[in-house]
């Protein structure tokens, strides 16, 4: 593979088979399907427990009856979990949507510059930017929290939006740089330059409109990572003003947790990202591939 697998739209095409599956039925083929099915069941097992438990109540919920279907199906735990999680559920949208939009715009601008303007030292600058996406955030958390406290910035969603946008710059820059480097023809930019358009105008008028596939990938990526984040959340917010991961952890991590409500809560928490995955799967995978720098 060359440098391109980070490019935005095609990853699923690259995953799709180049040729039709051979229609052979022999022992080897049966074994293959058997194996594929067994793994399918294993992967789905935790999901099964989550779903059945969330509809149970009372004595139905127990360690030994984990795998059983509910004796009586009830929505009580869903209601309880929803009542606990609702405020943070809404707050997490207020977190993840701005993060997704802002970081994508920043990423697009950076990616465009880095893909076209080969200024001296561009490679080093790019590598320094990339390193930022691999660091363990603990290494910045102590001063970060001190800054937030000293400046009197209230903990909560606004602070988290800022932080996710800053630390999302590397990955978004990477995705767009590779997208522009592989999909935007040099001639297009050359033509704009001949017409006397400056960098900013070229970017705004010509590049942005053809950047939708890149945006889809970064929006999904940033939305998902902001939605699923726990580390920044635990450092910079609390159950009263933080995102849903904090609220879920409080619900499920209590001394004697209500298992049915916890499982319903875990499902509620996962719903938005799972929905994104199911509806926009091909671009979601594109985002995942982007994390590999190149492959």
């Amino acid at each position, binding site marked *: *593979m*060359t440098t391109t*697998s980070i490019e935005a739209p095609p990853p699923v095409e690259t995953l799709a*088979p180049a040729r039709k599956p*051979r229609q052979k039925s022999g022992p080897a083929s049966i074994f293959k399907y058997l194996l*594929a099915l067994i*793994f*399918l069941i294993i*992967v789905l*097992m*935790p999901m099964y*427990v*989550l779903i059945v438990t969330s509809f149970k109540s009372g004595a139905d919920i127990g*360690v*030994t009856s984990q*795998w059983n279907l509910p004796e009586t199906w009830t929505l009580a735990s869903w209601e309880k979990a929803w009542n606990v999680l609702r405020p943070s559920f809404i707050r997490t949208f207020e977190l993840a949507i701005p993060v997704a939009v802002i970081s994508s715009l920043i990423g697009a*601008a950076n990616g465009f*510059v*880095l893909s076209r*303007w080969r200024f001296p030292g561009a490679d080093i*600058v790019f*590598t*320094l930017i990339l390193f930022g996406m*691999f*660091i*363990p955030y*603990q*290494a*910045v958390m*102590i*001063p*970060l929290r001190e800054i937030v406290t000293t400046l009197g910035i209230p903990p909560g969603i606004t602070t988290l939006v800022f932080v996710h946008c*800053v630390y999302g*710059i590397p990955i978004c*820059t990477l995705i767009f740089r590779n997208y522009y480097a592989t999909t935007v023809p040099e001639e297009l930019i050359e033509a704009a330059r001949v017409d006397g358009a*400056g*960098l*900013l105008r070229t970017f705004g008028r010509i590049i942005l409109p053809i950047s939708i596939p890149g945006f889809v990938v970064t929006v999904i990526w940033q939305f998902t990572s902001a*939605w*699923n*984040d*726990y*580390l920044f959340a*635990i450092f910079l917010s609390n159950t009263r003003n933080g995102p849903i*991961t904090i609220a879920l952890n409080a619900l*499920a991590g209590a001394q004697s947790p209500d298992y049915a409500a916890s499982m319903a809560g*875990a*499902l509620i928490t*996962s719903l938005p*990202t*799972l929905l994104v*995955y*199911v509806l926009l*799967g091909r671009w*979601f995978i594109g985002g*995942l*591939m982007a*994390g*590999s720098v190149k*492959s």
Partner: protein
Amino acid sequence: MRKLRHWGPGLLLLSPSLILLAIFVYGLIAWTTKVSVSDEHNALGSKGFVGLENYTRLFTDDINDRFTHSLKNLLLFTVVFLVGAMFFGLLWAFILERGVKAEGFFRTVYLFPMAVSFVASGVVWRWLMNPNKGDNAGGLNAVLGGLGLDFAQSTWWTNPTWGMASMAIPAIWQLSGYVMALFLAGFRGIPAELREAAAMDGASTYRLYRNVIFPQLTPVALSALIILGHMSMKMFDLIMSVSGPQWLTEVPAIYVWQTLLTSDYAKAAAISIILLLLVAVVIVPYLIYTNRQEKNA
């Protein structure tokens, strides 16, 4: 002047990000480093510079060798997690590569755990890895019992020696699909001519994979290892969610958090910097290597 006209607008567009990253990545790392060589062991602030004392004390003078213990936990977790996720990822990719009907469906299911947060999946894994055995067994132990594999029933992460290996199970569940996607893209990226040429030479299927296809996947395997490896070293959410912070399953990322709760900033900073160095040892050569490859391409 002409140079400035040429580079100027680009740099202008790039500069806010560069400034932010310079401050919030490199500046804050420098700040953490400074705290790690100070004696800021409580909320009262620092009185002075103590050199590398906080670092050496982690290795020589930590109660019950807590830090070395957390490193051992991390090592065991990382080995099991990497081996497991690479194995299943490659196997799944291989099965799909061999051609399966409804491939898209299998791919979607294998990959979906990636969309779930560790915090949410931890809720169910905590329950699946219930240590009860025999008649009281639930979760994984009940499955093993049902299959007649009672001897394999385990106390999972509560086992003091091998607990961290069990902690890797949810991580493997969550990320094998990702490795599969990487390998599948690798398989599909191999030019058809290569396969045809091998077939013309009369190579058997085994030799085709052994000598032609698998060697082509080395860069993919390297990428996958690096990504999983650095995720593993930062592992925090999953363990917090499955076991909560506790001695048995403590890794450096959690030790930092626990130390901060006691306001021992200098010590927490020292652990963070060691964690950063561990990640850097893996990532920096990889970034340099990638950069060079790209130039050659």
